[in-house]
């Protein structure tokens, strides 16, 4: 069953923002829980569109990629600036 994209984006953002308070970086798989009715690919597309809109951001370990909410958690770049 196809899910409304805007509705799904809202759910993903809400879910990520709530989760970011205690876990600032999430795998794409963690975001599937935002809407159990949506297929993994629909959630992926919604999350990536949110990144393009600047509402979510990518975080990379080099080998894996995670999603974060801007303003939550440290970025390595941020940590680097602090050290300086």
């Amino acid at each position, binding site marked *: 069953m196809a899910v409304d994209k805007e509705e799904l984006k809202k759910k993903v953002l809400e879910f990520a923002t709530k989760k970011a308070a205690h876990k600032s970086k999430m795998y794409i*798989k963690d975001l599937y829980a935002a809407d159990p009715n949506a297929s993994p690919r629909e959630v992926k597309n919604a999350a990536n569109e949110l990144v393009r809109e600047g509402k979510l951001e*990518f975080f*990379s370990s*080099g080998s894996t990629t995670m999603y974060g909410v801007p303003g939550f958690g440290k970025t390595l770049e941020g940590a680097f600036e602090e050290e*300086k």
Partner: protein
Amino acid sequence: MADVKKHDTPMCDELKKGPWPSFVDDVEQRGLHGKQECLDMLGQLELSYKHKETHWKHGGIVGVFGYGGGVIGRYSDVPELFPSVAHFHTIRVNQPASKFYSSAFLRKLCEIWDHRGSGMTNFHGSTGDMVLLGTKSDQLEPVFFDLTHQMGCDLGGSGSNLRTPSCCIGKARCEWSCLDTQAICYDLTQTFQDELHRPAFPYKFKFKVSGCPNDCVAAIARSCCSIIGTWKDDIRIDQSAVKAYMGGEIKPNAGAHGDRDWGKFDIQKEVIDLCPTKCMWMDGDTLKIDNRECTRCMHCINVMPAALRPGTDVGATILVGAKAPILEGAQMSTLAIPFIRMEPPYDEFKEFVDKIWGWWMEEGKNRERFGELIQRFSIQKFLKVAELKPIPQMVKEPRSNPYVFWSAEEVEGGWKRDIAEFRKRHAA
């Protein structure tokens, strides 16, 4: 000489000795010609040798707008000692299929990289990308702009994405290729742009395409989905060339082992006895092959390329699930589809990919490779998901595994039994 500062690097300098070209030499030369980053990188490497631990931190939020891969953030954790490599990000650039370049392309790329980065490159990374080593965050967007607008190339894959598909040299230079490897590689790259640039999966996923079973890109050992060229019909034999090999007029292996005298070529010892399925024999002075038994090992064709050639009814064998040894050791890929036509637009293959990606995205754990998912569930489950029928070639040997589970839909009437009916025939 440019105004640069060379660090004292006695341990790195040791690597300049010996018969092989040394990366230390090359990096140092570039440094002394005006790139402080190169000398700082060697300085940090020396410190790592001394401390026996790395001084690189990697990851973070670096990249170009809209892309979740292609740039690997890298930072020095001793920036006060080596300030020019404080930010030293790696950029992966999608290589052209089969890695064909013009010298003009390479010059232009090096010009861009000298201007925007450290001038150091790695041709090529393990996945096949051109790797540009070391630049600062504010140079990423300009490098990306130059690559896409001036060079007509794109970033490669990194992170939980489809990694840059790669292929062997294929029909461009190789008479054995059963596939147009470049066309397949290019088509997959274009079709799966979103998966390549934006994280979609629990972990990385790799396609590699080899034109024949010699598998020059080692697809069977390194890719989650290996596409390996094969043929259905008979090996083509030129009996006069076979005789020429036997008579010593043509050198075996195209002369590849000609630096030593190995004695007279012995077709029995060097070809027929080494056939893994023993499907070859000499009938008088005629070479015979029972093609039904051939496993496409390529040995006979490699030894006598002028006499034997792959058949003409060509396609690909698809295997899945190879990986490097991070968890539970290295794994070779497993046969999924023995023969599939690989002709544009490759719809049958793409349908297969859709099915296995759907399963992996649904069931795969975070950081679980596709091969590990099959290991965790079972080949049976994989076959069901991919809607493939098991074939004898998928098992190592028959009748050795007693744990064969039937599902209800595979058994007539399912698991439901009429107990009353059963008891009429069998006393309790």
